[in-house]
């Protein structure tokens, strides 16, 4: 179980999270929603150990994430597929996937996972020797997800996987997210695509200006008038 309790993060004077508390149970798919600048990416980066919270607690299966290095956190099976894809453009598709599995020592399982991700995203198999930079936006997103899956995640953090993609590609991405969920991968999904995210999610949280303003089942959130407002509300200023 992932457990965040009153997590606070500041970038210098800019307070990004003013107290985020959330839980993701094993096997759950939880959506993390909110307008631009609400603090969704910052939440994921603090789970991954990239940004250090100045307050609150972060735990994964009893391990204190606020003290663990990004490397240790990947070692715990918490893998992030970051916003903006961030694939290695100068590396081939296969090299990108190899980097996703770099900390793993189980060569046989890595080979099986490679076959598996290439079956989830067949287009990557066709492009296996092409450099990442030559892929289309949708293919790059698939590569980013496939690379994260090569790390054999127990908890997968997905940051806006559908951003800027054509509807047909968005469908494909959400199909894979649903498939991963059915396979039992625990997922924390950050999305602007609220309806689609809540359609696949078990539960959701809505962030605004660095804190959770709503939580609950997809149906409950969708019927809530504050959900619309959360998307219209401004980003947090530089409050201390």
């Amino acid at each position, binding site marked *: 179980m992932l457990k965040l309790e009153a997590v606070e993060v500041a970038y210098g004077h800019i307070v990004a999270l003013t107290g985020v508390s959330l839980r993701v149970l094993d096997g759950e798919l939880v959506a993390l929603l909110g307008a631009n600048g609400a603090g969704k990416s910052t939440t994921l980066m603090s789970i991954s150990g990239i940004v250090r919270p100045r307050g609150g607690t972060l735990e994964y299966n009893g391990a204190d994430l606020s003290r663990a290095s990004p490397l240790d956190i990947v070692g715990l099976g918490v893998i992030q597929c970051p916003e903006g894809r*961030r*694939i*290695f453009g100068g590396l081939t598709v296969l090299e990108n996937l190899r980097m996703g599995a770099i900390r793993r020592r189980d060569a046989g399982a890595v080979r099986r996972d490679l076959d598996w991700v290439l079956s989830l995203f067949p287009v990557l198999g066709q492009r296996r020797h092409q450099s990442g930079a030559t892929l289309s936006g949708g293919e790059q997103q698939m590569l980013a997800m496939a690379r*994260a899956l090569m*790390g054999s995640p127990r908890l997968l953090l997905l940051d806006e996987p559908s951003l800027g993609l054509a509807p047909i590609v968005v469908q494909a991405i959400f199909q894979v997210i649903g498939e991963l969920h059915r396979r039992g991968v625990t997922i924390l999904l950050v999305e602007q695509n609220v309806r689609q995210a809540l359609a696949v999610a078990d539960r959701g949280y809505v962030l605004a200006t660095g804190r959770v303003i709503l939580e609950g089942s997809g149906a409950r959130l969708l019927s809530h008038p504050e959900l619309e407002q959360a998307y219209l509300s401004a980003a947090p200023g530089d409050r201390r």
Partner: protein
Amino acid sequence: MSALELLLQQLINAVSIGSLYALMAIGLAMVFGILRLINFAHGDLIMVGSYVALLVMMLGLPFAVAAVAGLAASTLAGLAMERVAYRPLRGAHEIAMLLTSFSVTIFLENLAIILFRPTSRPFPAPSVLRSVIILGKLQVAGLDLIAIAVAALLLVALTVFVRSTNVGIAMRAASQDLLAARLMGINVNRVVAAAFAIGSLLAGVVGLLWSARVGKVDPLMGFNPVLKAFVASVIGGLGSLPGAVLGAYVLGGLEILLQGLLPSTLTPYRDAFVFTALIALLLLRPNGILGGTEREKI
């Protein structure tokens, strides 16, 4: 000498000097690619390796032993430099890192001056290294051929390394996107240490070849090579390994060309012409020959 022979002779000179620049430029480019650090102290690793080799020879041990000791010393000095001076600065501003590299240079050079005196000392390379091979009317220094062959061998080995080993691919990945590399569980400390170790070993090789060529060592001997390596990597595109190698051979060729073409009254100013050409190139291609567009770094 016929025109063809002259051309061939100059070509060998250019490739040989370009090879030394290439071995130096790779070390700079590897580190710059990942850390955005221009490590000016890289040149001093030449000096460290050469002095250690000289000391071992002064103990009466054979050149081969001295060479291995020199290479080991350069490599260890590079690793120590990373650990002590640069790792605590990880993520600091580029200017802070650059200033630190100047401090490391000043420290190492003054240490050498204190330990070995500021004057140069003869570097007694074995006579095979100083042989001259006569091919028809061509006179080729054995050391030039050795430098070319050694660099070619090391470049092939390096290519295999960055293309097919986990650490090598991780090095390329980290230089493209450090944040993504960390999120994938790439051990950035290990990758950076590998970059320093490889670059420093290559600097050690340059040190041996260079000292054997000029027959002496001195505490400031690393300055000119690191400057040239920097120019070479800027020509090729800072941070790109193929660019650094290409830039090094272009620079070697340019220097030999100017040496041959400039009237003798102007040859002392050869480097001024080299730098003018560099500025012209950067006006045309601000990111160097192989440099892409500016990438986001964290």
